[in-house]
């Protein structure tokens, strides 16, 4: 039964759109999908965040390291695909266990294919609804 609530400890949301972040956070909290979330509006910052918190040996800091990332594609500057390229270069065991889900407005098959080629755990078209979260919980 424990598994039904908070299947994830920390979820990192990377999206340049405030409203979209707000909605995703609401959906996660409502469905008790994670203990806490951390939102960043810039892919570069997200890389720095992972670099800072996921390489530590200190358990207290590792708590902040996300076990799941919801990643937008279209962001100014570094986009979601650029992020994945850099993210996949991390060799730490802790980081390689982080699941990355694309969460995007794009339902373009090319984007989906590209994301899959870059090894994402899933591809979700926005908005993140309760139904979609339920599916994720079943899969988790």
């Amino acid at each position, binding site marked *: 039964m424990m598994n039904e609530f908070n299947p994830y400890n920390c979820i990192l949301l990377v999206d340049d759109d405030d*409203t*979209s972040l707000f909605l995703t956070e609401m*959906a996660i909290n409502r469905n008790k999908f994670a203990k806490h979330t951390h939102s960043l*509006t810039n892919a570069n910052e997200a890389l720095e965040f992972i670099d800072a918190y996921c390489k530590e040996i200190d358990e207290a800091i590792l708590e902040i390291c996300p076990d799941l990332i919801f990643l937008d594609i279209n962001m100014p*500057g570094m986009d979601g695909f650029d992020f994945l390229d850099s993210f996949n270069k991390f060799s730490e065991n802790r980081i390689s266990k982080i699941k990355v889900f694309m969460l995007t407005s*794009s339902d373009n098959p090319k984007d989906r294919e590209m994301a899959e080629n870059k090894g994402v755990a899933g591809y979700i*078209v926005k*908005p993140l609804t309760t139904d979609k979260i339920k599916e994720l919980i079943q899969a988790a």
Partner: protein
Amino acid sequence: MDQLFEFIKGLFSTELWPARWSCGIWSPFHGWLYILSSFLIASAYFAIPLLLFRFMKRRSDLPFIRIFWLFILFILACGSTHLIDGIIFWEPMYRLSAFVLFFTAIVSWLAVYGLFKILPKALELKSPKQLELIINKRTRQLKESNASLKKINEELDNYLYAASHDLKSPINNMEGLLDLLKHDNEALEQTLILEKLDESVRRVKQTIARLTDVIKLEKSPYDDHATNNLNVIIDEVLADNFMIIDSSKAVIKRELQIDSFHYSTSGLKQVLYNLLLNAVKYRHPERVPEITIRFYVKDMRVFLEVEDNGLGIDLARYGDKMFVLFKRLHTHVEGSGIGLYSIKKLIERKGGTISVSSELNVGSTFFVKF
């Protein structure tokens, strides 16, 4: 007249002359040489039209079909004269012979006339070698236009992709917000959700306005060509954007090797406006923006350089996205992602190019070859 009537009446009569064998002294060898040669010529002359006819049948696209018929008639007539010439050794049909010769003479001259008439047209016909060259040239042209069509198609794809994405995101948000409203009873959150709904509606409107801008831009002809005094044009662009430039405290230098330049006035202003504004927008927060505008001539072409000491761009990473519609490289500054795309289109449409060199945290230089 009497002679003519008599000639026609007795066209086939042979009584008035001796057969050729009895006229003069023919050795059998001499006579048969004459006769056989005449028949061989005649049979060859009858065979040639048959082959020509077959050729005409097979080649339905043959030009000058009437001259072919005339030639068939001409060759048949020639053959008949030789045939009669041989027969005369036994049957002295000299009247018929004269008539056939006369007929052949007329057909021969008709053929001469016909050939003379079509000669200029026939000369225009391309030889297979010439045709091959033409085909090669056309193939090359087709390949080129195919490549440019592909490029246009790709651009259109990018455009539609960008447009649909920018419309979809706020609409998806609205869908999510409405869903929240339906299930949320807390008054505080409702106000927040309504605010965000307002914001989403504003974004849809903004995106539609931007799309309209792009369409206008694609249609703008930029045909107001004139000799532009560069100092005047730069002054005008600076004056139009006085507020933005003044508040940035930017120092703008001019290095003009030429005073004037013949180009679309509105196009030139558009290019300068976008490059200047970019330089101001993406200034470095820790130093006074310095922007240099250079105009010079090299290899008979006019060049423009706009150099700044701003944020710079990681070209290895973002170089290919610089001039793409709706792509923005910096997050902290408001931008529509149209500016560089639009001036690239404009410059390229007029046969020029635009490129950029840049170093992160040092600055960027845009190069325009008009």
